[in-house]
């Protein structure tokens, strides 16, 4: 898809906010739309660069990710795992009801 079609408007902001699970107050949507358009406009200068024969670079380490044997290396730390949870009960994280 070409970037000409990708100018952000308020419905797009609503969609991205939804995908990001971010509640954005109505009053700040226009400013956010403008900011996103400015930033996306700025990064669009990459279109000038010919990358037809270039492979994407995801990691600069130059080494292959190491493997280890699939063994448990810790455990029995239920209390520690739950320690920072806003709400927990009986060894579980508690969330709002998801099934009617």
């Amino acid at each position: 898809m070409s970037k000409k079609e990708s100018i952000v408007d308020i419905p797009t902001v609503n969609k991205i906010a939804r995908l990001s699970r971010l509640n954005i107050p109505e009053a700040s949507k226009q400013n956010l739309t403008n900011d996103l358009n400015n930033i996306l406009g700025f990064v669009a200068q990459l279109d000038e660069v010919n990358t037809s024969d270039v492979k994407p670079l995801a990691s600069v380490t130059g080494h292959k990710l190491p493997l280890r044997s699939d063994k448990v290396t810790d455990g029995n730390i239920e209390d520690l795992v739950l320690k920072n949870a806003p709400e927990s009960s009986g060894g579980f994280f508690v969330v709002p009801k998801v099934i009617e």
Partner: protein
Amino acid sequence: MSDLLKFDLLSASIALKNKEFSSLELTNAYFEAIEQTSALGAYLEIVKDHSINMAKASDKNFKNGTARPLEGLPIGVKDMFCTKDIKTTASSKILENFCPTYESTVTQNLWDDGAVMLGKLSCDEFAMGSSNETAARGNVINPWLKNIKMSPGGSSGGSASAVAARSALAATGTDTGGSIRQPAAFCGITGLKPTYGRCSRWGIVAFSSSLDQAGPLTRTVSDAALMLNSMAGHDKKDSTSANLEMPDLMNYLDKGIKGKKIGIPKEYTQDGISDDIVTFYEKSINWLKESGAEILPVSLPHTKYALPVYYIIAPAEASSNLARYDGVRYGKRNEAASLDEMYEVTRGNGFGEEVKRRIMIGTYVLSSGYYDAYYLKAQKVRRLIKEDFDNVFEEVDYILTPSTPTTSFELGKKQDPLSMYLNDIFTVPASLAGMPGISLPVGLDKLGLPIGIQLIANSFDEPGLISTARVLERSAEFNFIADGAAK
């Protein structure tokens, strides 16, 4: 007035070994300094009882002759490092009560080598910012000008401000696109971003995982060498950690640069750089030349695309990394009727404006239909930027650039996100290439604000970076102390 504050990390370490004073005395002097400079807002949390216990343990080790490399030296920790049982907020409201149950590898390495922890230092929220103004608990102030509130830079603004104000002997930082080097430049101190993979990222709050790297903020190049010696090392808990021994950097302090080639990239001398910085950049070139280096013009043709690449890749990775703040496992929760609404209000209220902006950009460039045009394109241009560096390092040993286009700016004056992003124009390219860079102070501008110069080395050549930076440091003779520093 405490004479103890005059010692830098290395000289304090020697003085402690010679029993000129105790770690407890030194640590207490720093707590007085923290109090004296508290208006700067550098510290989010001080842990005095913990510090005193660590200092007493260090004094015992000196007595027993079992002192370790950083024994008894009081340092500050950027709030991006998880510290066991000590609040770690990443300067975000969403983590305001987060108390890690584990210690980051880098800080553990420091404590294992005897360092004393003073407390946690402010930064931009989730390290996203270049002025420390995105911190949930308010900006930090640069100690250099007493009458104007200047930015300490960011994101490691608290770390830089504290080291410059002498309320920490040294501090840890993290650098994703310049977050160690830019604040070091603004605050007249030394900041070193190591090669990607040198320091373990385990236990560091993740922002952009292919770029994040920890490093020291210190008063001198020797101090940076001493501290990085302890911070770096292979860690099985970070799959990107380099399994490579780092030579003892203290052996490279006085190697000099005779016969070394220094590249001056033509793309880094553009419009918009302040005149004073240009003057000191030229002076720095001459200093290196006089010290025996050969100066060569070089070209990194894709430099102008580094910021656009960065502002696609870093937000993309951030949007993914920050998905974990869901109000369920840790962090603050805002209650709502359904799970999805709970996520939305928790994240909407818990994150600040800049963080939300970056999550939105990241989500957008990764979303269906735009992934190839933005994210994949950015990864391709990232390769071209890395190849620019690889090519130049075939011709020269080090690259010299200004650290920033301008010196520090007044807090509250830069409102537009894009103009803020331009602060990192000279630091982002080396980050994208994974190469180590150091910023050190070389002079003051007309307002009396510090000017930083950056040296970039090839991957894993921290030893040579230290040797070269030491030559520049000795020539520059930057002996100024910030007006607002503790006395």
